[in-house]
């Protein structure tokens, strides 16, 4: 319980990376317009650049978690997977796995298609109990 909870809720005393810093401080704080001496072009670049970092980190973390879950599920579906790849013809094992992975990730990210996945998740859970 303790291990879980400390993962579930954390506070870091300082912004440890650009990622933490950006959405905390950009566009915030006191402004005295007349005194911005740094080239605004430069600031824009830092801002845009940093925004991309923020969006990427969050998106990447999300994908990473989705793939973690995928791995668990694929282990339990290994037999099915082999069938699928066999039926794929000349596609080659690696590319089949990749495209299957992509489909699954896409599924995981689009709420509308989720019920199907939900079912299979429940199915495999019941199977393992």
């Amino acid at each position, binding site marked *: 319980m303790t291990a879980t909870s400390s993962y579930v809720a954390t506070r870091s005393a300082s912004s440890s990376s650009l990622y933490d810093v950006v959405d905390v401080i950009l566009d915030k704080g*006191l402004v005295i317009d007349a005194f911005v*001496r740094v080239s605004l072009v430069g600031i824009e670049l830092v801002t845009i650049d940093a925004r991309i970092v923020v969006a990427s980190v969050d998106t990447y973390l999300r994908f990473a978690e989705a793939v973690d879950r995928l791995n668990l599920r694929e282990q339990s579906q290994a037999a099915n997977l082999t069938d699928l790849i066999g039926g794929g013809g000349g596609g080659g094992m690696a590319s089949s796995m990749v495209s299957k992975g992509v489909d699954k990730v896409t599924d995981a990210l689009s709420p509308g298609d989720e019920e199907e996945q939900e079912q299979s998740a429940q199915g495999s859970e019941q199977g393992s109990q």
Partner: protein
Amino acid sequence: MSAETTQPRQATASYIYGIVRPDSAQHLALDGVGDPPQQVRTVRYRDLAALVSDVPEDLGEGSRRDLLAHARTLENVARQVTVLPMRFAMTVGHEQAVVDEVLAPDYERWDQLLAVLHDRVELSLKVYYDEEEMLRLVVAEDPHIQRMQGSQHLPDRMRLGEMVMHGLEARKAADARHILDRLQPFAVELRENPPVAEGMLLHVSLLIARSDVETFDAQIQTLGEEAGGRLRLRAVGPLPPYSFVAQG
């Protein structure tokens, strides 16, 4: 320490990090922006002090490194004393201008803000949700959805998907409201920011008393445990009150 103005050197400008009470800032030893980082010092006016460091007149493009240096300098200050944080890259031509153009003309404003924000800090909280866990809950809570699960009939599947989507939205809204309700009582002020990424349920800035940081920790811990794995709460702070110094 004080504003004994050295000759405004042509090549040097003053970068301003923030404003503090002078007596509170006596023992701060900080490195600021620049390469190599320049020592941060104070420029005083009455009972105000600006935290400044020298930068080249032509700072060029703001760099990541400087952005981080700005943030860390202010965080170090905020950990110890109340500070009004400037936005990144506030720079005036020379040290005397810090007094003449920043501290003196708006003295009342700085003085009031420092009084209002005394011993208060900002915490930034992002809450993420696990979509699978959320969906599991949505299904578990709605017998309607359970009955329709597995149907191969297209209109039914559409209907099912619609119900799940709305259920998910409702669940997210309820979770967000619950968290806000629990944080509100000890937040002096609470500001919601737009979520910056998919999978983010909530993104808030809280202004709280420095002495309430532990209460906050306990609260997010409890919220996390109650959510049983479907939410992840990630906070950063204490920070300078970036979100609570804006004009107007």
